[in-house]
């Protein structure tokens, strides 16, 4: 997630979120073949192109407005806003996610716990916030001192 954020943190995989359902259904075979060809050509791990985030989180998030990053013929690749990545990392709340939050926070205007909660409300659906309440609370306590 931090690949595009000038972060020193590298990534082993790319979490994709397919936006157009019909296009996915129509192109999935060629997509699979393309991914496999790249896996072999660059000796990558098979899961470098990772569908799991979408499978697991589709019903938890509000898909943000994204910025067009690259265009390869009909394939358009968008990148999500930093604030959205930050929201997901606050919700995940693992040690490494909180370190990533430490990189992302100064790149946003989020200064307080209240603003961070508003950010979560903007991108994470209420049921998902409820399910992940414990880790969200821990992340907020960790990131915002005594607020």
């Amino acid at each position, binding site marked *: 997630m931090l690949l595009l954020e000038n972060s*020193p943190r590298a990534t082993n995989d790319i979490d994709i979120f397919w936006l157009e359902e019909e296009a*996915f259904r129509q192109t999935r075979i060629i997509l699979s073949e393309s991914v496999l060809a790249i896996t*072999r050509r660059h000796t990558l791990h098979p899961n470098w192109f990772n*569908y799991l985030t979408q*499978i697991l989180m*589709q019903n938890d998030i509000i898909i943000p407005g994204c910025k067009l990053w690259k265009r390869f013929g009909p394939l358009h690749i968008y990148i999500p806003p930093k604030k959205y990545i930050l929201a997901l990392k606050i919700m995940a709340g693992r040690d490494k996610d909180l370190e990533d939050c430490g990189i992302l926070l100064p790149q946003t205007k989020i200064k307080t716990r209240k603003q961070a909660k508003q950010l979560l409300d903007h991108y994470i659906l209420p049921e998902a916030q409820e399910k992940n309440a414990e880790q969200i609370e821990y992340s907020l*306590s960790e990131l915002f001192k005594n607020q």
Partner: protein
Amino acid sequence: MTPETLQLMAQMHEESMREQPIISEPIETVAWAYNDICAGEDPWTALGNFTNAWYGYAKSIRAALVSEPLVRPEQETEYTRRWGAFCAASVEFLCDRYQVPCPAWVRDPYYTLETPWWRTRQVHDLSMRAYLVKITPPPFARRNIFCSNRLFQNKYEMYEWTQEARAKGITDPGEIWNYARDKEISIHGA
């Protein structure tokens, strides 16, 4: 996306996982990760590479990923001592969770820190310290490292558990999530 399309996506994930992994040389063992950390790599990138091997392409050879002792750097610092202890604790934690024989090197007293390492930005907040003491997994606390209990949770296991729930006939999304979350807590403690 409809559930049917997500199911297609799940199939594509499983097909890609069935692809014979191209195991890079060298395999990203914990010793390799520690060497990278000492050479200046971001610790979570190095440990992320190791856990990617642990949960993904090298999960069938987990014992081999942790058997080799860490090589101490020529120039030891507090930083390298701390991350050495963190690697040893991680190995003990993971071996215990996944029934892998734990290598003897992790019990070397060298990997117990002399002073506590508080892995928090709120290091002076006594309530945060008390909370970390409460939740830190024992292999870390024993080595004087105090951190959260959300260290190695990952989407690969979460996905497997959601599939397991479906295989048991659970169809309600909330119940599927509860099933997977219970599994996560039973393995990772949080």
